[in-house]
């Protein structure tokens, strides 16, 4: 729980990701439209020549849509990656900053398995939700496969 984190301030929420899983942060004006994209899937971008499917984090965490990333002229997409999965997390114009291991030593871990959260950490009276991006990835795959019903 104390590994370096990338923190995201989005629509009043504080979200966090392990920096070890962040492959890059891309600034985009437009993500390519995906046929029949729906739900929180918001398109495709490229990172170092590789296509990356993008999900809208504000929709995944039920933010009011006036704060939605697609309202922002330029959007930040955080690309997360493991051995077999790559996903872009569209966080719009949200503040993005780091929480280093040193300061995380005084944080208190908490449980939260709701939605796309895989836990929380309390730090200096702030509660950070750790994003379960693999669950977002699986849900995106499910939603996009369901689009086969368009046939």
């Amino acid at each position, binding site marked *: 729980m104390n590994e370096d984190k990338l923190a995201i301030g989005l629509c009043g929420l504080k979200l966090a990701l392990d920096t070890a899983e962040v492959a890059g942060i891309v600034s985009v004006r437009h993500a390519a439209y995906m*046929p*029949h994209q729906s739900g929180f899937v918001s398109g495709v971008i*490229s990172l170092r020549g590789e296509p990356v499917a993008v999900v809208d984090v504000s929709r995944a965490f039920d933010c009011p849509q006036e704060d939605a990333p697609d309202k922002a002229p330029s959007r930040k997409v955080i690309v997360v990656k493991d051995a077999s*999965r790559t996903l872009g997390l569209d966080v719009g114009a949200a503040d993005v900053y780091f929480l280093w291991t040193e300061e995380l030593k005084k944080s208190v871990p908490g449980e939260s398995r709701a939605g796309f959260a895989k836990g929380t950490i309390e730090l200096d009276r702030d509660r950070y939700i750790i994003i379960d991006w693999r669950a977002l*990835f699986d849900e995106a795959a499910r939603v*996009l496969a369901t689009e*086969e019903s368009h046939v």
Partner: protein
Amino acid sequence: MDTSKYKALYLQETSEHISGIEKGLLALEKGDADATTVDHLFRHYHSIKGMSASMGYEPIQKLAHAQEDLLDRIRQKRMTATPTVTDALLRCLDGLKALLKRVEDGGALNLDIAPLYASIKDAIEGRLDQAAMTAPAAGRPAAGRPAPDAAAPGASGAAELKLSHVMKVEGKVFDDLMATVGDLIMALSTFKAISHGSRSIELKEGVYMLGKHINALHNNILSARMLPIEDLTEGLPRVIRDMSQKSGKEVELRIEGASLRLDRSTLEGLGAPLVHIIRNCVDHGIESVDERLRAGKPRSGVIQIKAYSKRDKVIIEVSDDGRGINAARIKEKARARGVAEERLRAMTDKDALMLVCLPGVSGADVVTDTSGRGVGMDVVKGVVEGLGGAIGISTVPGAGTRIDMELPLTTSIIKALLVTEGPELFLLPISRIERVLEVHRNEISGGRFSYDGAVVPVISLGAALGMAEAPERDYYSLIIVHGRTLSGVSPAVEAETREVAAIRVDAFGDEIDAYIRPLAPPISRLWGASGITVMGDGRAVFLLDVSQIVSKALLTA
């Protein structure tokens, strides 16, 4: 059989076995060898023997066989690996090396192996003595035959240390190389666009030279990625054997043209469709022995796979001499699935056969645990089309069925047309485009357009892909495409039955060579797209699946 094309592979494999043998024999001589070492030694000899027999290198096969026999005795503890015995084995190893060097150089295998062979026999029979061992040498010529070059490298175990000129490379290396070339091609397309708008002769020449070298690199990598079709078909005899046993039918497999080479990715994609087609042949095509005999056919049914090239395509035909497909029954099943009566009536029997590629429509009367549920041929068609190919079916009732798969030699880099719809860019494969037209909106009436003497449906790309409705424009680009191609039919029938439609887009752009990547999770099952590319400027652009888009539009029209 022409085995010359396998020589490099043979030499590479045997060289690995020779290294293993050398290591094992030295351990055996030092007394460090355990049972596993002896087992490995035995297998190395066994492999060399088998491979050499396949290649027709009899002296190598014979010598390896003798040593394998000796190792088998040591393995079974029927004799001991004394220093004299290991010395004999090492001398025979030198003999093997000398013979392999001859293979490599294309020389005759005329070394006299009789003394080496005799020494192994003596060792087995316990008659080996040092004097007998020192007389024969690997390089001694056979009586009456030309003398081999005694100084030939490799004739002695310690004569030379050298690397094989054949390398084993993981398939992924070629995939990565192809991806890099793909990126180069996409970058080249950006440079081409810049040079198009430039007056600089130097830039134009530079872009031309760059393109020439990238093409050469692309061709070299393509040729390295090519694999023979037999790599795919070698597992089929077992599949057929198991299915024949299960069904009680007698089936013979004949393969023709298996040495033809296809891109690795295409070949990989063909595995499941090929097995599915074969299963259909065994389950539903080939009759039982009794039925065949009653019909005056031979007891054993024949499934024939025939591969050949036609221009830049490879055709793989899979045929059986079974009962054929009943087109009328297919039509009935399609009717039950909701295919319009009018459409069915207009279909010839030949066209109706393609209905087996609709989900849930099967030509089979019997459902087995492997086929007959109408799930399969739609997937086969989808996979073949996903590889940029087309599928065709022909049948003669009572005489058999033939499935033709027409495939591009490679699927990674294709010619495609850029089109725009609203702010979005998409690619359409050139192979599916008949014509591109710019028309006024008034020329499109009731969702139809008059083209080439026929009325074709007009599909709004935006609507087909579920995009937000855009304000109407005065002019549109119409991309006339064919949704499917039937192979194995006459040009007249093809023209009559082709599924032509016009895809309406805002505008069209350049024709480009696009490096197409497969769709990976989470978008691997995305409807309407068959691949994706990343342009030189970093934009991700989908290659649209014309068949899916046209089929859906025609079904809902």
